[in-house]
């Protein structure tokens, strides 16, 4: 009979002490390696000028200051197109694209996972194949398609392709299949609920972890987008692009550059933190299976 012991609230089985320690050390080492570069960015962004140019450079900051951030904001004010324009572009594209994708992909995922219609296997197979290649492979051909559709040099060139991502559809379909029971949908249909209403009011709340993952994933892609071959007018370019232009001014701006990197990375990280607590919470409570 195996040795059983409890840790926190659940039963943990067959765990040797040595293995626990070994795994902990390995995880700690990997964690430190992952974290150090991130730590260095933050340290750089808080260093005053003399510490940035100090030799040998220190890994940590001695007297932290927000100088680099104020420098960055004054550099922003000098830009040719008002900086609020770049910020608007990125926020508009990220939000429209993310929520559009959430709706379009979930709708399609629901239909694929929960309605048995002819051709659904064929369609899903096509989606799985499309996960197997990187979108940059099609970028050049896409340029031609977009010019034909008149999307070049508009914000829609970024938004429309992001509305239907195969990754989003795949994720949502998997979640719908495992988290939404057919009986509940069937009874909703018998009660006269339309398919669209069943999807929105019954299936969607049950796959919260799925759409939170989808939001994190889509948002980070759109938020982090830099320059694009589809957009050449200055007033349609992204925040990320503008910030890179500012900080490419050489070593003198490396403090402002680190500040900009911190601002850029903090938004997706916050969104992930918000979603993560929800994901864990939902995963703990949505133990419904048929």
């Amino acid at each position, binding site marked *: 009979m195996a040795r059983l012991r409890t840790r926190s609230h659940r039963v943990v089985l*067959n765990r040797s002490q040595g293995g626990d320690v070994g795994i902990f050390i390995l995880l700690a080492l990997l964690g430190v390696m992952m974290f150090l570069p991130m730590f260095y960015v933050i340290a*750089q962004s808080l260093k005053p000028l003399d510490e940035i140019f100090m030799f040998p450079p220190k890994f940590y900051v001695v007297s932290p200051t927000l100088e680099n951030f104020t420098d960055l904001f004054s550099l922003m004010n000098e830009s040719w197109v008002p900086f609020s324009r770049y910020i608007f572009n990125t926020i508009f594209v990220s939000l429209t694209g993310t929520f559009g994708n959430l709706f379009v992909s979930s709708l399609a995922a629901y239909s694929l996972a929960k309605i048995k219609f002819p051709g659904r296997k064929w369609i899903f197979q096509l989606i*799985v194949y499309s996960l197997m290649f990187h979108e*940059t492979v099609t970028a050049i051909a896409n340029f031609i398609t977009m010019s034909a559709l008149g999307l070049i040099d508009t914000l829609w060139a970024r938004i429309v392709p992001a509305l239907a991502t*195969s990754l989003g559809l795949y994720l949502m379909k998997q979640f719908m299949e495992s988290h939404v029971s057919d009986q509940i949908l069937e009874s909703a249909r018998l009660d006269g609920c339309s398919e669209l209403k069943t999807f929105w009011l019954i299936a969607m709340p049950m796959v919260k972890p799925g759409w939170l993952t989808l939001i994190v994933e889509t948002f980070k892609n759109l938020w982090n987008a830099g320059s694009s071959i589809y957009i050449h007018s200055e007033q349609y370019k992204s925040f990320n692009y503008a910030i890179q232009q500012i900080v490419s001014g050489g070593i003198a701006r490396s403090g402002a550059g680190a500040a900009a990197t911190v601002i*850029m990375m903090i938004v997706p990280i916050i969104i992930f933190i918000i979603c993560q607590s929800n994901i864990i919470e939902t995963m703990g409570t949505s133990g419904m299976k048929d």
Partner: protein
Amino acid sequence: MPEAKEAKRPVARKDMTKAQWTWKEMKRNKTAYLMIAPFMLVFTIFTIFPVLLSIILSFTTFNMLEMPKFVFMDNYIRLFLDDDIFILALKNTLIFAVITGPVSYMLALFVAWFINELNPKVRSVVTLIFYAPSISGQVYLIWKTLFSSDSYGWVNATLIKLGIIYKPILWFEDEKYTMPLCIAVALWTSLGTAFLAFIAGLQGIDRSHYEAAAVDGIKNRWQELWYITLPEMGPQLMFGAVLQITKAFGFGQVVTDLCGLPSVNYSAHTIMNHLQDYGGQRYEVGYSSTIAVVLFVMMVGSNLIIKKLLSKVGK
């Protein structure tokens, strides 16, 4: 990836031909088609059509100004027989993929597995530490500062102080170091969606399966991993593999950002960089479509092979 099992139908379909029956089912489920229509429209225009267009263009010379001219296999012949840099890029891409693909996959799987043993509060912090580099956009540019060749580079300064080297190493301008550094950065940013999928998969496994297995004589965590955890995670394992392989073959933007385009003596030049070079800078649309098609075939091909291999896990 497993398909949903076909439900048994109560409908009698003996008195109809297959086409008739399909048509009837299609009409009955017209809402399903309406629901999937927006997705399929965008997907067709921006994913399927560009793939087909790339294949067609790969047989032509086209510069976006004049009409495309059909040249049959000329582009492919030029690519494999006349373009030394492509062969170099092919070699580099394979090295990148063979190292970063499996290593990043195992890393994601094992870290997710370790994290799953922690208590929920610690787990969310640790998850964030591992996941953050991949969602933080261009944060990897910090590697350029860390490995900077002038006296502001922390790595050079430390090595000089310790007496290991006497003059700074030009990390991103030295053929010896560009590839290993790019591989390190690739691994650093590799714990992305696949990693999250693994964590979700691990959390979804029913605890009672482990308890039952312990009774059946599973002796340690490694046996538990191989006989219970991995087989239960089948769909996530497959999904993760597809994402990591695709990412490994699509590697190139990081090289451009860290080492420039082209990198010194093409030492870290990948097929993706070659594509950027011909498509984005030289506007040789026909030729770059050929490069895109070759890369496409490599990505899909290796994914299909891995899919075969992964179906053997836990057997």
